[in-house]
């Protein structure tokens, strides 16, 4: 008896010895594995941080714009035009309109560049030598339109001098902000040496100053005058599409989820719909673009490049998200609530619409916002339905030509004037991300509010 006892004791000690021998190695393995996990987290979070820092670092400079403060003289010598017609001098409104249109045409034919040039020269130091073409590269090309419109609106300005702010050109802005390497030789610079010297002089004497770039928010896209290119048109286009998505995807999505979850008999048909919805959620977005091009534009002849088509395509893309999320929310409703409602004599429809749906409202709302935020950033399908056309106007209806924020980003990153448009693209990305973060923040806030109340 004692013999066996001592042999088992011995065996046990032996075993312990062997286990101890391996412990160091095993704990090292544990530490390494854990370290790898932590490294993965750090790496993933590092990517998030890097991306945000990178975009912000690149985009922030684009939120300042360089303004030229000019004293514009409407010099009668340069502006040789008849006085503007007045209504009293004409017998009928029609004649007056005709005369006034003719006058406006005459005004447009004048060489307004001379006016811009004169005011630039007036602001320049006395000893500057620079030719007309070079000096005009400093101001944005649409400066002359702004000044002309001032004159059309108020013909009495002739002979007067007015203080006007116009944008410096994109190339001038690059030079001022250092977006282009200042040490590069003349051949690689986009502005001539005298123009660059004059810009520096302007900065010196306060003719050029930097201010917040409101133009990004208040202007539409522009190719002729890149410094004034803004996001307003794309933003409104995006708003139209999101409205369409919300109006169509939410009711249809919720209704479909309610049907599948609450009413549909379990059959092959509903199984098919279910598999189908799960697969739709994973279909590449570009395929939806193909669907839009073939069905909405080529077959139904909806207008090309219009938010209505973009909205419809994004609706179809968002539907699965909303259906899946709503079904999840409906499944989460406690059976007790259903039985209580049915027990009170409510019909199935009444139970669903009066008792079950209201409880799931916070989840549906969150899913909707997340779905919309997803649709907001979608680019590829919009390219296929023509929304990458250059549009320099605000779409007033969903049938007008338009583009969208992410597409505008795509267009700007492809612009040849990289020095100017890279920051501006990053700025547009900041606006897009800000809208998305705002939406997600609202979703989180609303959910916590509504869930607390419930």
């Amino acid at each position, binding site marked *: 008896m004692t013999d066996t006892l001592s042999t088992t004791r011995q*065996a*046990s000690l032996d075993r*312990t010895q*062997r*286990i*101890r021998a*391996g*412990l160091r190695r*095993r*704990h090292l393995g544990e530490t390494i594995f854990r370290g790898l996990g932590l490294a993965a987290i750090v790496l993933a979070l590092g990517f998030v941080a890097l991306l945000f820092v990178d975009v912000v670092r690149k985009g922030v400079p684009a939120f300042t714009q360089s303004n030229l403060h000019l004293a514009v003289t409407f010099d009668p010598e340069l502006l040789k035009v008849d006085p503007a017609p007045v209504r009293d001098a004409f017998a009928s409104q029609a004649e007056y309109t005709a005369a006034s249109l003719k006058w406006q045409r005459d005004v447009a034919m004048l060489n307004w560049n001379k006016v811009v040039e004169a005011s630039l020269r007036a602001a320049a130091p006395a000893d500057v030598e620079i030719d007309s073409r070079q000096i005009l590269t400093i101001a944005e090309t649409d400066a002359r339109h702004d000044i002309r419109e001032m004159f059309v609106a108020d013909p009495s300005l002739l002979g007067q001098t007015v203080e006007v702010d116009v944008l410096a050109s994109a190339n001038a802005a690059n030079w001022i902000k250092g977006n282009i390497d200042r040490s590069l030789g003349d051949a690689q610079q986009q502005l001539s040496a005298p123009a660059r010297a004059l810009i520096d002089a302007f900065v010196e004497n306060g003719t050029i100053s930097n201010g917040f770039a409101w133009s990004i928010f208040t202007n539409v896209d522009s190719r002729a005058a890149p410094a004034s290119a803004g996001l307003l048109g794309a933003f409104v286009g995006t708003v139209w599409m999101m409205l369409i998505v919300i109006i169509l995807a939410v009711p249809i999505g919720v209704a479909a989820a309610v049907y599948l979850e609450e009413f549909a008999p379990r059959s092959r048909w509903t199984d098919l719909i279910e598999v189908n919805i799960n697969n739709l959620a994973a279909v590449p977005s570009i395929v939806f673009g193909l669907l839009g091009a073939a069905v909405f534009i080529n077959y139904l002849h909806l207008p090309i490049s219009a938010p209505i088509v973009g909205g419809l395509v994004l609706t179809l893309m968002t539907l699965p998200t909303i259906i899946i999320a709503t079904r999840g929310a409906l499944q989460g409703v406690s059976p007790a609530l259903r039985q209580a409602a049915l027990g009170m004599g409510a019909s199935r429809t009444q139970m669903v619409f009066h008792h079950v749906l209201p409880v799931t409202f916070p989840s549906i709302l969150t899913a909707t916002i997340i779905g919309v935020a997803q649709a907001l950033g979608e680019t590829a399908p919009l390219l296929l339905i023509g929304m990458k056309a250059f549009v320099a106007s605000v779409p007033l209806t969903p049938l007008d030509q338009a583009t969208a924020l992410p597409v505008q980003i795509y267009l700007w990153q492809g612009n040849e004037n990289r020095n100017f448009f890279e920051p501006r693209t990053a700025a547009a990305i900041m606006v897009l991300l800000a809208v998305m973060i705002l939406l997600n923040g609202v979703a989180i806030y609303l959910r916590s509010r509504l869930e607390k109340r419930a």
Partner: protein
Amino acid sequence: MDMVAGKVKMTQQSVKSAMNPTDMLERPIRLTARDVTVHYGAKQALHGISIDIPDRAVTSFIGPSGCGKSTFLRCINRMNDTIEGAKVGGTIKLDGEDIYDPSLDVVELRARIGMVFQKPNPFPKSIYENVAYGPRIHGLARSKADMDEIVVSSLRKAGLFEEVKDRLNEPGTGLSGGQQQRLCIARAIAVGPEVILMDEPCSALDPIATAIIEELIDELRENYTIVIVTHSMQQAARVSQKTAFFHLGNLIEEGVTEDIFTNPVNKQTQDYIMGRIG
């Protein structure tokens, strides 16, 4: 069927005959617990448990559900470490060595104190690999032949070898519930533990499988110190030599099994055994 029924009967007889209180009390003490408390966050689950566990005998913990018997069992091989927010106080000693001593390696401890769980939980591997897993991670087998021997002898000790010897490479999850539980016991034995903890090992099994496991426990008692948590008083009476009654996180009464069931000192124990609380 007849054979199994006979087995059950035999088991009960053999257990009865083995129940010799004096024999039990003469056994050396393997585990001692003093003032053990457990907190889950702000909630206290155990209030100062002190008990001695005798060597190579079966000790059973009984009590109504939620009484803390499983919680205490999980303290003995520090399984509570894996639960977030669990805090254990007091001391538990295995052969005089404090198992909560920071210098003690929990991996080594668990190799010495094995555990069998409520629900059979074979790994999604073959029967062979299930049993070989413990020896493999601890480096206990010197060679393939060594490992084969450990696996076969563990399966034999768990009374499963004859049933599975032709399909050692089939998945362990394909066995019946009772077989799975015996596989889990074999898996625990393979590491060569000194103590085996069993957390309601039969609660997910049918009566026949339960009888087989109970018989197995009785056999294992020869070589291992066994602590078993059970919600069945009959089971405690059948398999254990020592019984402890837990209620609301307190150890109410402990003693020789026969005494606890026939002559409980405490009123609460009496109520529980008579079925008045539970």
